[in-house]
């Protein structure tokens, strides 16, 4: 079984977000970039499947991006971290990820003739939370798409899955190949061990040129969120005041 696991490169969850003077791009100074946390669920599940059947499963990890100027902003380093979970090879498509259409197009172009049985993503990336790329890749490749997947088991080429839906979970079956976006629950996050980290250094690592495609959506600018004023302090002995405030705003 061939698995493709796509990861994105995002600012650390605790990073202070600032933008360049024109507001068009993220100011990357001093920010540590990590593997998108939802992609970690996909990587962990891929590692579990590999562990169960080391010779029968091959996992390729892929990212679309260029390495930044700082060591904390290296797509290659994050791909190596992913490899350290025991996965087989890494591919970086050497292009700035301009919009979701562009990124999905690159991934689909790479995956098209490689015969992957399973293409895994995180459900969304924590920078733009767009949840666009996995579905677009499925549509480009005309493969079934399971969104917000919380489990996948594979038996005889048939996948048994659950996905999150409004107010519950749905059980599904699907013959491989398929595209899946991972929600929490798909697998437990893993931390690479020293042996994995050592081995990752010598695993196959390919840098691929992008195909030509015109992005469709561009960023005009970023703004800070509307500022919050100081909050109104309510005396715990005078809780009625809070009730009145909420009532005045029509909230209760």
């Amino acid at each position: 079984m061939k698995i493709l696991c796509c990861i994105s490169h995002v600012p650390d969850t605790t990073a202070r977000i600032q933008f360049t003077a024109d507001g068009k791009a993220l100011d990357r100074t001093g920010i540590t970039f990590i593997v998108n946390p939802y992609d970690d669920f996909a990587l962990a599940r891929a590692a579990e499947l590999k562990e169960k059947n080391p010779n029968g499963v091959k996992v390729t990890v892929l990212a679309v991006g260029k390495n930044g100027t700082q060591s904390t902003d290296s797509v290659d380093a994050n791909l190596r971290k992913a490899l350290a979970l025991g996965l087989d090879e890494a591919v970086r498509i050497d292009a700035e990820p301009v919009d979701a259409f562009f990124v999905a197009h690159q991934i689909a172009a790479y995956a098209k003739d490689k015969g992957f049985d399973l293409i895994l993503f995180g459900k969304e990336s924590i920078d733009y939370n767009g949840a666009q790329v996995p579905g677009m890749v499925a549509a480009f490749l005309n493969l079934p798409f399971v969104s917000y997947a919380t489990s996948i088991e594979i038996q005889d080429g048939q996948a048994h899955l659950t996905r999150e839906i409004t107010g519950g979970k749905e059980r599904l079956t699907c013959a491989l190949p398929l595209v899946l976006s991972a929600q929490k629950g798909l697998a437990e996050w893993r931390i690479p061990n020293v042996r994995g980290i050592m081995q990752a250094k010598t695993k196959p690592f390919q840098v691929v040129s992008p195909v030509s495609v015109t992005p469709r959506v561009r960023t005009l600018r970023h703004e800070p969120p509307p500022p919050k004023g100081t909050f109104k302090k309510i005396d715990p002995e005078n809780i009625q005041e809070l009730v009145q405030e909420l009532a005045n705003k029509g909230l209760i």
Partner: protein
Amino acid sequence: MSAVAVWVEISEGRLKKPTLETLTAARQWADSENLPVVAIALGADFPPNLTATLGEYGADSVIRLKGPQLEPLVNSVYARALAQLMRERQFSYLLLPQTYDGRAVAPLVAVWADGALLSGVTQPPQREGSTLRARRIAYSNKAIEWIATEHLPVIATLRLNSIVPAKNARTPTEEELAYTPMPEDLRLKPVGVEKVATDKVPLTEAEIVVSGGRGLKGPENWGIIEELAKALGAATACSKPVADVGWRPHHEHVGQTGIQISPNLYIAIGISGAIQHLAGVASSKNIVVINSDPEAPFFKVADYGIVGDAFQVVPRLTEAIRKYKEQHAH
């Protein structure tokens, strides 16, 4: 016919709030460009007053695609049908709610209708000449991003709880067509659904959310959260550490790696307000923070703050809300 098309999500035979929000936004969008609103519903069967209700919220016409294989929803089936309609009727725009299924269907439609996708917009996009501009939330509530496209058609998803549903009555025309999915779109096979806590409002759609954190000291103390939620008609949520140690189920976890919500009122009890938690809730319209630590970072984004012991404050608040509601019940 150029139009703003809307995918009408029917869930358990009902039109829920996200659909009404989407219709309201579509009406505003259509008015700004002098276009009609076309509501598109897919299903095996439709609620009795569907067309009339869609008209109340501003639909000029309703297209009902009907077929036994349209339930339960399979994203590829819905997306293929929507993309086909967009092409045949030359709709410029399609708006979907940013629900679980809206988010899964939208990118497929975008590719198959050869469109541009604007994901998670907080208001109807605005046209300026050949450019369509839209606003969305980026970096988990740490920024607002303005995006633009010159491409047509445009597929957009509307962030939940961004628009207040408003009536704008008209008498829509109705068209019902039979739809048979392509076999390749039925490769994914739903086999069953497990619902959780059916008596509660889903967290993503709730107008009021009461949330508890480590400050509550243990799962046995969640009664005060449940009671307050009950008094308010609210959904309950929790912070990540609480879900991680198993005090509360994972589906209640709100935050950067949990569910992201933007209710009208978020009441945080015993939650310090770590940056990852705030990322999931900071776009709530009103935030009440109850915490015994006056230095808790959550107070920085609060609208109302109470420094005090949750075990005393919360029951008192519940009681005061019950009394208020009794006095003001019609």
